[in-house]
């Protein structure tokens, strides 16, 4: 019997480690000879912890939402309804997995399993059969575009770095996944670190670099650990280091842990951070391909981009280009979160409609509430409303809606999400993360945040919407890097599609989603109130008056709209408006 436990960060957070330990314990106490292994995240985060049992006859049973208490029964093969449901299994069939193809299937800590899945064949093919120019040509025919957000053609960057005459050259992997609500890169690093290493090797061979750095977010300790292990194994097997597989090509790789700064996702800021400085972006040109890390030619790609490369080399660029839409080829990984039933990681062919991702794969909205919008691209992106749900997921179509493809965060919102509050949330984030170099970004985001905060607090004024729009456009124009140039997007796109909601906040002093506390009125419905007095007892400001066994009332002048009364009332007698 072989048991595999999904141990990505989300699985562990859901208790996978405890399940793993319980299985180990159970094996010991039964004196069983079972094999226990781990794997990365398969993407079905809503079912974690996930345990797979593979019987001697090859039969596989998947158990979901496993707790340590369930382990005894699972091992005793007494299977009382813990197994995965058919419709959940089918979610995987609706996807097309290239970057995630090994995630949740192989043991990320075993190079043998990676090699058995066809791993490192790509780099072997490159160094033995292909010239660097041919490698670039292959990536060009695949038409792979950068998966970090901007969607710049990968081959073009590689070619520019290849053409640079200066040496040494550097290959850098951007694993500083800073977009709150996105965890694609983390899952790939945790679930299939070798694919990223192989992708970097192929890229390094193509541009002529012999040194590489992976810049990982320090908040991803497990990813760093698995990468370190993978690098050690690759070195042992001769895939990293000097004279790789007798080809004469050498590549040394190291990890650098970032220290938490969203702006370091920008290439030039990332380079400054690699050099031990404050992560401030600089003017381009010169581009990193000419003058990057230590003023030498440097190529930077994102984790998911690299994870696609081995597949492209093995299967050919044309096979990759057959997947996807006209201008966006291949697949894209999305982190589907928010008010969604089946949240997790999905990889789909470019060009499929948003609706399919959210309703077919994601199972629709939690608690069957109404869909309101989906936020794409995080703090640089925007909200896409319901009438655009049939938009195809590719770079150009998403850009047209005012959102961006971004790195792959897809946060679903329902009717209880306030769009003004959402815009305020993102502005609060970019205001904190602005490095301060450009005045428009540094001060402009602060001013925009102040305006949004006052609208949420019920102090919005006539003209605020126009002021936000004007400021937004100026910040876009007056900022040097992507952070500032895109920071106003969440505000501008919500004004574009949900202007009414802004107006209701400003003129009617009402929050239709009932999120902005200052705009809410709490009242007690006498027909439901039994006069138990628990609300009055819990009110922190003594704003509820009444006599026992009689309906209570809320004194509006004293009420601070904390919602405590609604929380404690067992008879749904507190109404919010």
């Amino acid at each position, binding site marked *: 019997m072989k048991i595999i436990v999904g141990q990505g960060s*989300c699985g562990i*957070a859901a208790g996978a480690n405890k399940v793993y330990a319980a299985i180990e314990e159970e094996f010991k106490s039964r004196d069983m000879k079972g094999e226990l292994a781990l794997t990365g995240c398969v993407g079905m985060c809503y079912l974690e912890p996930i345990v797979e049992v593979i019987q001697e006859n090859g039969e596989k049973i998947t158990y979901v939402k496993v707790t340590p208490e369930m382990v005894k029964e699972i091992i005793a093969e007494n299977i009382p309804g813990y197994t995965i449901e058919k419709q959940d299994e089918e979610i995987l069939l609706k996807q097309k997995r290239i970057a995630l193809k090994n995630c949740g299937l192989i043991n990320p800590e075993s190079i043998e399993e990676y090699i058995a899945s066809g791993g490192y064949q790509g780099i072997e093919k490159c160094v033995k059969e292909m010239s660097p120019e041919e490698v670039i040509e292959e990536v060009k025919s695949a038409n792979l575009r950068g998966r970090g957000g901007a969607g710049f053609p990968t081959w073009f960057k590689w070619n520019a770095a290849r053409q640079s005459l200066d040496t040494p050259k550097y290959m850098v992997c951007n694993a500083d996944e800073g977009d709150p609500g996105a965890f694609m890169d983390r899952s790939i690093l945790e679930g299939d670190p070798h694919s990223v290493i192989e992708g970097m090797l192929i890229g390094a061979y193509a541009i002529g670099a012999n040194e590489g750095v992976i810049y990982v977010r320090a908040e991803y300790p497990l990813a760093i650990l698995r990468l370190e292990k993978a690098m050690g194994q690759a070195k042992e097997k001769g895939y990293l280091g000097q004279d790789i597989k007798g080809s004469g090509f050498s590549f040394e790789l190291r990890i650098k842990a970032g220290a938490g*700064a969203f702006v370091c996702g920008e290439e030039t800021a990332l380079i400054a951070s690699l050099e031990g400085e404050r992560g401030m972006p600089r003017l381009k040109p010169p581009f990193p391909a000419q003058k990057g890390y230590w003023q030498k030619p440097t190529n930077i790609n994102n984790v998911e981009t690299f994870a696609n490369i081995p597949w492209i080399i093995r299967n050919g660029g044309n096979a990759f280009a057959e997947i996807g839409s006209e201008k966006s080829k291949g697949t894209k990984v999305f982190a589907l979160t928010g008010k969604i039933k089946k949240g997790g990681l999905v990889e789909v062919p470019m060009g499929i409609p948003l609706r399919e991702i959210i309703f077919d794969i994601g199972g629709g909205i939690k608690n069957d509430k109404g869909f309101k919008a989906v936020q794409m691209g995080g703090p640089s992106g925007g909200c896409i409303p319901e009438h655009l749900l049939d938009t195809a997921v590719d770079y150009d179509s998403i850009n047209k809606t005012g959102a961006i493809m971004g790195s792959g965060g897809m946060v679903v919102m329902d009717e209880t999400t306030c769009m003004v509050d959402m815009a305020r949330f993102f502005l609060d984030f970019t205001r904190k993360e602005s490095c301060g170099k450009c005045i428009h970004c540094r001060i402009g985001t602060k001013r925009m945040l102040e305006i949004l905060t006052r609208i949420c607090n019920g102090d919005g004024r006539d003209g605020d919407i126009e002021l936000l729009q004007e400021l937004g456009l100026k910040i876009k124009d007056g900022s040097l890097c992507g952070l500032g140039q895109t920071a106003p997007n969440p505000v501008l796109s919500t004004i574009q599609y949900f202007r009414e909601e802004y107006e209701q906040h400003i003129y009617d002093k009402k929050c239709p989603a009932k999120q902005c506390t200052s705009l809410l009125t709490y009242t007690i419905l006498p027909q439901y109130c039994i006069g138990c007095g628990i609300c009055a007892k819990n009110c922190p400001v003594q704003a509820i008056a009444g006599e026992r066994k009689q309906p209570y009332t809320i004194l509006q002048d004293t009420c601070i709209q904390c919602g405590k009364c609604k929380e404690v009332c067992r008879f749904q007698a507190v109404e919010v408006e």
Partner: protein
Amino acid sequence: MGCCMEKNERKEIGEVSQSKWEKLKTKIDKYKEIPGSLISVLQEAQEIYGYLPKEILQQIGESMGIKPAKIHGVATFYTQFRLEPVGKYLISLCQGTACHVNGSKLIEEVIRSELNVDAGGTTKDQLFTLHNVACLGCCSLSPVMMINGETYGKLTPDMARMIIREIMTSEQKGV
């Protein structure tokens, strides 16, 4: 006697800080060879001390030949670095988009009122530090918080309150 004990205690503290510094010093010597390693050194220092004490920043500067202003600039730029000591329990409350949509604001309010401390602050008894973080990456468990490395997901205000109170009670019993 009392005076004597105090001296011993002081000596012990001195030894601890000496051994910590020596530990850091070996790391500094290793990183000195690699240009651009200031961030890595600060990360090592924080790992050893739990935060970045002012005098340690000074000493790092002296050993690496870097001006204090630059070290301060780097240390204050990145959110990972803390210039103040943290409590025994570090609560990292996720403020990512998914957590925000699923009600992290309410969780924060509960914790703040339970501990009587603002985000970024430490309780007077040095037991808890409340720290808002951008995203812990367990979005499907939102809202999420992490206390000393342990993740608590799908929180409700009541659950958060209970978790905090449980820690408080176990601490009181321990003392």
